[in-house]
């Protein structure tokens, strides 16, 4: 058994349409439920032990806080689903797009023009990364380099200044509520539904999933694998653009450190939700669930008075635990 599993490390692409999930009903059920279990556990424990956790305002705050990570994670999940793990430039591209959006508004452009330019910039940023990765460059190393160069450029061009909007035309979207629910949270949920439908119901979505599941087979049946990788990075950048617009709406300004830690949160959400391990199965909801788990965990720890280090430590530990549990369970099924 152990020898069999050890074979995996470093083997080239496993060309298999038939890597089974966990065999048997039990395993399958466990895998589906695994990402939800922590939410329930954390919720019950927190409700019982943390005063003030199950209050309306706090729960709304949790959903709102997970919205930003969640939206960015839904976008980045496209990269995961197409089989390239993640981009390490999420934070940097969100900062860039926030500056672009704010600057457009500052120079007196209309909201429509500002949004259009931000989206075009996002498409460009995504396309460059996607092109590099689709040629076969290591996705993590290439996006690390790209993010560094991009961030340096933005800090240089903006002179590391904070741009503040006097009039904020998107304040209602970033900071407002509808029927008591923060608009950011509504955007998050709507995006989750649209994304799920996109993956399961459209031709492009299904091609993305298939490419991630088995790139060689996808290529053989004529799916334009490289083009799909580019599209996945563009979708991720669009997610960052949405995040940038929402947060600018909320805080009315753009600054170079406004998204500190976003990349780590997104990567952790993708890992904790288990989408990274399921890969080509394309279960987008896992990205949203991951974001929710992490935010709830952070919220509880904040209420308990634990500091940032402990929160980061637990994020990493939880991500590793989910990763290893699901990997081992999947290995057993072989």
């Amino acid at each position: 058994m152990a020898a069999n599993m050890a074979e995996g490390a470093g083997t080239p692409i496993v060309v298999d349409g038939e890597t089974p999930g966990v065999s048997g009903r039990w395993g399958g059920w466990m895998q589906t439920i695994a990402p939800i279990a922590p939410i329930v556990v954390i919720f019950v424990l927190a409700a019982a032990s943390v005063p003030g956790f199950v209050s309306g305002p706090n729960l709304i705050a949790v959903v709102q806080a997970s919205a930003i990570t969640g939206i960015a994670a839904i976008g980045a999940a496209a990269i995961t689903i197409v089989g390239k793990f993640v981009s390490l430039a999420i934070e940097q591209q969100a900062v860039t797009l926030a500056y672009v959006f704010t600057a457009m508004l500052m120079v007196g452009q209309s909201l429509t023009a500002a949004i259009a330019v931000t989206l075009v910039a996002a498409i460009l940023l995504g396309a460059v990364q996607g092109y590099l990765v689709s040629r076969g460059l290591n996705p993590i190393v290439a996006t690390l380099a790209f993010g560094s160069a991009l961030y340096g450029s933005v800090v240089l061009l903006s002179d590391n200044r904070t741009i503040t909007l006097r009039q904020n035309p998107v304040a209602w979207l970033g900071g407002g509520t509808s029927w008591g629910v923060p608009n950011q949270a509504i955007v998050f949920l709507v995006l989750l539904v649209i994304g799920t439908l996109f993956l399961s119901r459209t031709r492009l979505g299904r091609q993305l999933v298939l490419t991630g599941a088995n790139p060689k087979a996808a290529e053989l049946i004529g799916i334009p694998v490289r083009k799909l990788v580019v599209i996945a990075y563009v979708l991720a950048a669009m997610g960052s653009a949405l995040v940038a617009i929402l947060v600018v709406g909320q805080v009315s300004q753009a600054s170079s450190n406004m998204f500190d830690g976003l990349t780590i949160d997104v990567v952790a959400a993708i890992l904790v939700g288990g989408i990274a391990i399921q890969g080509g199965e394309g279960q987008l909801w896992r990205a949203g669930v991951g974001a929710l788990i992490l935010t709830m965990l952070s919220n509880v720890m904040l209420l308990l008075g634990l500091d940032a280090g402990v929160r980061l430590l637990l994020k990493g530990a939880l991500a590793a635990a989910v990763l290893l549990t699901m990997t081992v369970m999947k290995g057993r099924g072989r």
Partner: protein
Amino acid sequence: MSVLARIDRGLWLRIILSIVLLVAGSILIDGFATTATLASITENVGLIGLVAAGLMLTMVVGQLDIAVASVAAVSGIIALLAGQNSLLLGIVAALAAAGVYGGVIGWIIARTGVSSLVLTVCMLIGLRGLALVLVPQAPAILSDDLFWVSDGLVARIGPTSLLGVIGLVIIIALGLAMRGTRLGLSMYAVGGNVERARGSGVNTTRVYVAAFAGSALLAGTAGILASLRSGSASGTGMDSLLLDGVTAAVVGGVSLEGGRGNIINVLLGALIVRIIAAAVALEGVQSSVESIATGGVLLAMLLVDYALARRSGLPFANSWRVLAGPVRI
């Protein structure tokens, strides 16, 4: 023959590039052609070289350790915290922790087949958290009566400092071990073709454990040396080591596909990275220029590698290779 020619061409390319950069720096930048600048460059080559050499170990076996910067930060902190009374004890404790951690990671990767990239990203996050837990507010400080250690490390020795010499000695010893021992050669074999290596009797678990323990030990050593040099270690420090180390390794021609890489080229890669950093620092421009330059050099080198591989008809296996394992992501 053709393989040798290729290695030589790469070596000469890097030597020429280093010389061109040094000459250009001396001509264009005031204060570049001084012994102080040179010593600072070589000292940091020792430091970045340690991280890059560790990355090379994991890259040669066809994996990648993304957590090196967090490992360096935690190691530096442990050395200073545990070294309050006896510095030697602190250093030993930090190295032991790093070595055991790396060994466990390597063992998990070998046994479960989990993608090293994904697992070490978890560790990057978690260990950064650990660093902040160990020193939540003010950084850990070297006690006053140990300041001679900091001074000693930067004491000039020839064209470099004691720190530079320590780094270079470790790196060169590692390079010799990679080429001269069974374990070292096994690493290249596993990175070249894991099935064939296993078929010819290589214990792959041992190879992965050695690669990741080595990577953590080298990153830990770099972290300890850097912390001792500055006399302090903060929870948020050293995060630039990842980009610098990866850039040095990739500019040094270590293949992300596994099976290729040699220490001399990695040292030249580190030299090129540090020359650029020194030039940027001397020009007095903002540090953002350094991240543009380093990121740009890394990207350019990845593309050159890609173009060369395609031209010579070598299979530039796509990036799915590094992410591979039974776990496809």
